[in-house]
């Protein structure tokens, strides 16, 4: 198992490098550059050239990429500098548009907020979705099944951009139960990502977590139901029933674990996506999370920021998929990694 994990981690390194290179090249293929405008005003040619020189954007593209990876080592050739100011030592560089701020700083402030929102939403989704799916499957073809399936389809069909404003209008503007927008915690966070769990934090979290979580829980419920229905028809379930086990034991001890495999498969990538920020929800609720960087930094040609944000997402995806594989082995003892 440990060997398997190490092999997977080592494999992910070239994949991550290839992805970084892809984003690096694609961004530079888009016409326009980071220093075309200051606000609405077109910058003069000379200023642009100076800025490009300062950020090394005037160098040949392959040198730029090597510099992004190993930092100042390109100039000094001093082995002690290898990777310093570069990706290989975890330095994502300076933002090209937010002058004076490093990408590490920007993501360090915004990622924890997205992660708090994302983890709470995922928890809500799992707590509602999995039991609802199990319940619907056990009551297949009764009105309970039909109505919960209907609600689940409705849940996956209401887009975030509809659910968010609806909740704001109803619970913030009409009833004044919850604040309209913004997030209830600010950096610096405990241990770098934990919010102080004040009443303010929870009040602000309710509406965005609800809008994100309900949609997720609906799709998890659908998946759980379909998967459990398939497992429950397997031969070993018939065997368990034939042994005279109670139905609750058959479901809880025999069917459930296996039926969770497809659910876990989806949860992994979903987790990586949700934790790195959902643009729409963050935009609608005015949450200063990471989601907006994926959109604005491409429009702004903030090369380093989009590269950094994509990399964080990709690393989380690798970790999440690894966790999924490890969970498989726990859910289904037939799965072995040697």
């Amino acid at each position, binding site marked *: 198992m440990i060997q398997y994990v190490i092999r997977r981690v080592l494999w992910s390194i070239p994949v991550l490098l290839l*992805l970084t290179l892809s984003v690096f090249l694609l961004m530079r*293929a*888009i016409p*326009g550059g980071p220093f075309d405008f200051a606000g609405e005003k077109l910058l003069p040619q000379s200023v642009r050239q100076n800025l490009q020189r300062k950020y090394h954007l005037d160098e040949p593209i392959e040198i730029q990429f090597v510099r992004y990876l190993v930092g100042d080592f390109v100039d000094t050739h001093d082995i002690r500098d290898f990777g310093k100011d570069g990706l290989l030592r975890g330095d994502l560089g300076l933002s090209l548009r937010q002058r004076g701020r490093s990408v590490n700083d920007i993501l360090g402030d915004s990622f924890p907020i997205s992660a708090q929102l994302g983890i709470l939403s995922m928890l809500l989704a799992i707590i509602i979705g999995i039991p609802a799916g199990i319940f619907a499957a056990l009551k297949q073809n009764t009105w309970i099944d039909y109505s919960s399936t209907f609600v689940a389809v409705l849940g996956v069909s209401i887009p975030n*951009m509809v659910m968010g*404003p609806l909740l704001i*209008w109803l619970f913030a503007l009409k009833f004044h139960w919850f604040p309209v927008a913004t997030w209830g915690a600010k950096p610096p966070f405990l241990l770098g990502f934990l919010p102080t769990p004040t009443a303010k934090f929870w009040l602000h979290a309710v509406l965005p977590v609800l809008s994100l979580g309900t949609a997720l829980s609906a799709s998890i419920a659908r998946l759980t139901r379909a998967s459990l229905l398939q497992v429950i028809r397997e031969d070993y379930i018939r065997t368990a029933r034939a042994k005279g086990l109670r139905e609750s034991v058959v479901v809880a001890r025999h069917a459930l674990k296996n039926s969770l495999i497809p659910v876990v498969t989806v949860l992994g990538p979903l987790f990586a996506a949700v934790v790195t920020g959902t643009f729409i929800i963050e935009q*609608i609720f005015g949450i200063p999370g990471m989601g907006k960087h*994926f959109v604005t930094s491409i*429009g702004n040609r903030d090369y380093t920021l989009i590269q950094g944000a994509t990399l964080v997402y990709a690393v989380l995806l690798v970790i999440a998929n690894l966790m999924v594989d490890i969970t498989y082995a726990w859910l289904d003892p037939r799965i072995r990694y040697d």
Partner: protein
Amino acid sequence: MAAMERAAPAELPERKERSPWADATYQLMQNRLAVISIGFIIILVLLAVFADFVTPFDFAKNHLKDNYALPSATYWFGADNLGRDIFTRTIYGTRVSVSVAVIAATVSLGIGLIYGIVSGYLGGRVDELMMRFVDFLYGLPIIIVVILMQVFFKAMARSGNAVGIWGGLIALNKSLGGMLFIFIAIGALNWIGMARIARGQVLSYKEKEFIEAARSVGAGPTRIVFRHLLPNVIGPCIVQETLQIPGYILLEAFLSFIGLGVDAPTPSWGIMIQEGYQALRSYPHVLVAPAVALTLTVLAFNFLGDGLRDAFDPRLRGV
């Protein structure tokens, strides 16, 4: 077991023999939600085609003194920040969503089927290589790539000095209100899931006896693929494609919401929802029509996709 089988036919109602397709159609028609959804989608398509005849206004015409007008006999669903009729814009919005649904689905199904069938049928080295490429594309974050492509297209269109094929594409895109590039951006990566499914299907049928029989009587590869493989492979692929359509519609709405969608003043539900959200505090009625339209459309395609899946997969049917 044998006794049960002999006893069973007496209790079963008489059942005509049907081809799998006819059987699936029959099953689909038994599903009330799916039938309602099909009806709704047909109405949507008709509205999209005949939008010019249904709507009382020009979708781009401003009536500045009527901005944010409440619903009335003139403006059925009210008017937006520029006094444009929301009913008219919602109806025209169906054009974008329906075209994205149809074209993205067709492109994805087409590329995916061809790629998957070629890969699965040829097998060996070619298959290996083609599937590694799909694996690589799978690793790319789709949303980021779609945003990258849209920003690229918009920048190219704005720079305006493109010639040759680029110039033609940009002109065509402009006449479509910006929809062409959305089709390309959405279609570019969404065929990979389909390619995997098609390949899997081909692999499971390729070694079956009826293919061998066809080959033994001298059928060439073209005949085998088109007469014997394709009819078997296409069913599950169409089901899967239908299940993906809500995703395409939502992706277009997302792009329009963030300002990377169709070009103003072409109406898209995503843009209208964004405008409605901006006015939520004082004029919540602006949001209602596009939000309901988008939700109902996604809902209808979800019900249709579920219905198709159940119809084609007897195991999921209620016993």
